[in-house]
C-alpha cells in the first residue's frame, strides 16, 4: 500500500495534474489583462495543458507498469546478470574498523 502510494510516478502525475487543472482554469476564467500579460500569450492556459500532458504520461506509465510488475522485472534482470553487478546484499558492507595500511 505504502509502496504504491510512494510510486514517484503517481506523485508526479498527481502534483503536475493538479497544477495543470489550476492553470487551465485560471487561463480560461482569468481577466483579459492576465491573458495578455505574457507578450499576448495566454501562458496559464498553454502551460496548464503541457503540465496535464506530462501528468498523463506519468499516470499511463504507472498504470501500465505497476510497481509490483517493475519489481518482478527487476528480479528477472537481477537473476539474468546474477553475480555480475546486481547485489542483493542490503546489510552494511563492513562494520569492522578500517584496515590500517602497513
Amino acid at each position, binding site marked *: 500500500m505504502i509502496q504504491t502510494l510512494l510510486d514517484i510516478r503517481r*506523485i*508526479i502525475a498527481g502534483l503536475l495534474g493538479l497544477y495543470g487543472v489550476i*492553470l487551465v482554469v485560471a487561463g480560461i476564467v*482569468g481577466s483579459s489583462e492576465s491573458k495578455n*500579460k*505574457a507578450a499576448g*500569450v495566454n501562458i496559464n492556459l498553454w502551460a496548464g495543458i503541457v503540465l496535464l500532458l506530462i501528468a498523463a504520461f506519468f499516470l499511463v506509465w504507472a498504470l501500465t507498469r505497476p510497481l509490483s510488475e517493475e519489481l518482478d522485472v527487476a528480479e528477472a534482470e537481477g537473476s539474468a546478470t546474477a553475480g555480475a553487478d546486481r547485489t542483493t546484499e542490503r546489510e552494511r558492507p563492513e562494520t569492522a574498523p*578500517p*584496515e590500517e595500511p602497513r
Partner: protein
Amino acid sequence: MPTFDASALDYAIIAIYFVTVLGVGFLARSLIKTDLDFFLSGRSLPAWITGLAFIAANLGALEILGMAANGAQYGVATVHFYWIGAIPAMVFLGLVMMPFYYGSKVRSVPEWLRRRYGREAHLFNALSFAVATVLIGGVNLFALGLVLSLMLGWSINTAILLSAAIVLTYITLGGLTSAIYNEVIQFFVIVGALGALVTVALIDVGGFSGLADQVKQSPLKEAGLHAWEGMGIGGDNPIGADWVATVFGLGFVLSFGYWTTNFAEVQRALSAKDLNAAQRTPLIGAFPKLFIPLLVVIPGLVALVTVKGFGTGSADIQQYNNAIPALMAEYLPSGMLGLAITALIASFMAGVAANVSAFNTVVTYDLYQDYIRGDASERHYIWFGRIFTVVGIVISIGTAFIAKGYENIMNYVQLLFSYFNAPLFATFVIGLFWKRATRWGGVAGLVAGTLGAFLTHLLYSKGTISFGSDLAADFWGAGVAFGADAIVTVVVSLFTQPRRIEDLQGLVWGMAEVDPDADLKRPWWQRPVVLAVIILALAVILNIIFI
C-alpha cells in the same frame, strides 16, 4: 528584485507544493528499516529516479539565478560551464569512477579515501567536507530567505526559518529517499516553470533571431553570441579567461572536482539499485544538463536587452542576479507566477536538502561510526543520523547569517569549491590510477592543495597577482590547488612505504570488482558506454553550433 503582487492563487500553488514534499517525507518514513535505508535509500532506486535527482541536486537556485546572471554578463560563453565543464566530468564519473565507488560498496566519498589511503586522509576529508557542506547549505538557505523576502515581502528571518523547518521535517522523517523523491518532483516543477518563462520571453523579443539582433546592440555586442570567440591566448572575450584557463581550470579541475568527488552528488548514484543503474545515474542526468543552458542563458540575455539599464543601474531589478525574477514580474500572470515562485523555492530547497542529506551521512558513517562508536545497532545509527540532520540544519541557519555578510554569494561559493573540491580531485585520480600512492602522500597532498587554493586567493585579494576577472581567478585558484596537491602527493609517495597490493582490491584502476561483460547483455539504451558516446557527440555538436 521586484516585489510581486502574488495573489491568493499563487499562494495556493506554493502551499500545495509544501504539502506534497512533507507528504512524501511522511510516506518515506515507513520504508526505513535499516540505516542503509535512511542514508542510501537501501541501494534500491532505478536509474531514471537517481539520474533526475542527481541533476536536481545541482539545480539549486544559486545555479539558476547565478547562471542567468552569467548569461547576462558573459553571454553565450556561459555554456562553457555546461558543455566543457559539467558534461565531460559527468561522463567520467559514470564510466570511469562509478565502478570503484559502487563496486567497492563504500557508503560515502570519504570512505573510499579511508580504504585507499588510510585514516589521516579520511579524517581530513570527512571533517573538511562536513564544514564545507554546512557552509554551502547556509548559503542556499540565506539566498532562499533573500528571494522570498524580496519577492513576497516576508521578513528574511521568517523565510529562512520556514524553509529550514520544511527541509528539516522531510529529511528527518524520510532520509535520503524523501530527499531524492522530492528532487525528482523539483526537477519537473523547475523545468516546467522555466520552460514557460523562456518561451514567453523569446516570443516577446522576436524569437532567436530577434534576440540575436538585440544582443548585438547591447554592451555584449557580437561576442555575446559566441562561445569561443576571443578564447585564444591573450584574446579578449567576455569571461576574461583564455581557452587554457577555461579548459584546464573550469573544465578539468573545477568541474571534475565538483562532479566526481562531491558526495552530495555521488550519494544519489550510490543509492541506485545496481552498478549499471549507478553508472547511468550521471549519464541520465547529463541529458537535461546539455539543455539547461537554454533555460538560464536566454532569460539572462532577454533581461539584458529588455530591462533598461540592466547590469549598470543600481536598482534591484537591474542587478545581474535578478534576471529571472525581473522577467517573472514582467511576463507572468497570477497562476503561472505562483508556479515560477514555487520553482525557485523548490530549487533552493533542493540545494539545502542535498547538502543536509550528504552531511548527516558523512557525519554518521565517517566520523561517528569510524572514530567514536563502531558497534552500535542500526536503530542507533538511524537515530544519530536524524539528530545530525537537525544539527546540520541548525548550523546551516547559523552560516546563513554568515553568508549575509558576503556581497557576491556566487563568488563565495566558487571560493569554497576551489578550497575543498579541487585538491580532492587530484588525490582521487592519483589514488585511482597509481597504485604506488601512499597513505602519507594522500594526506600531505590534500593539505598542500587546500593551502595552495588559500594562498592563491590571498595573493589575488591583496592585489599581488592579477587575473582577467574574479571568475578567471577561481579557475586559476583551482588549477593551483590541483597542481600543488598532485606534486606533493607524488613526491611524498615516492619517499614513503606503499600500501600492500591486496589492500587495494576493488579500489584502484585494473582491480575493479566488476564483470566487464555484464553490460553487453543489456539493450543499447542501458549500456553506459553507448549513452556516453551519444552525450559527448551532442556536446560537440552544440559547441559547433554556438562557436
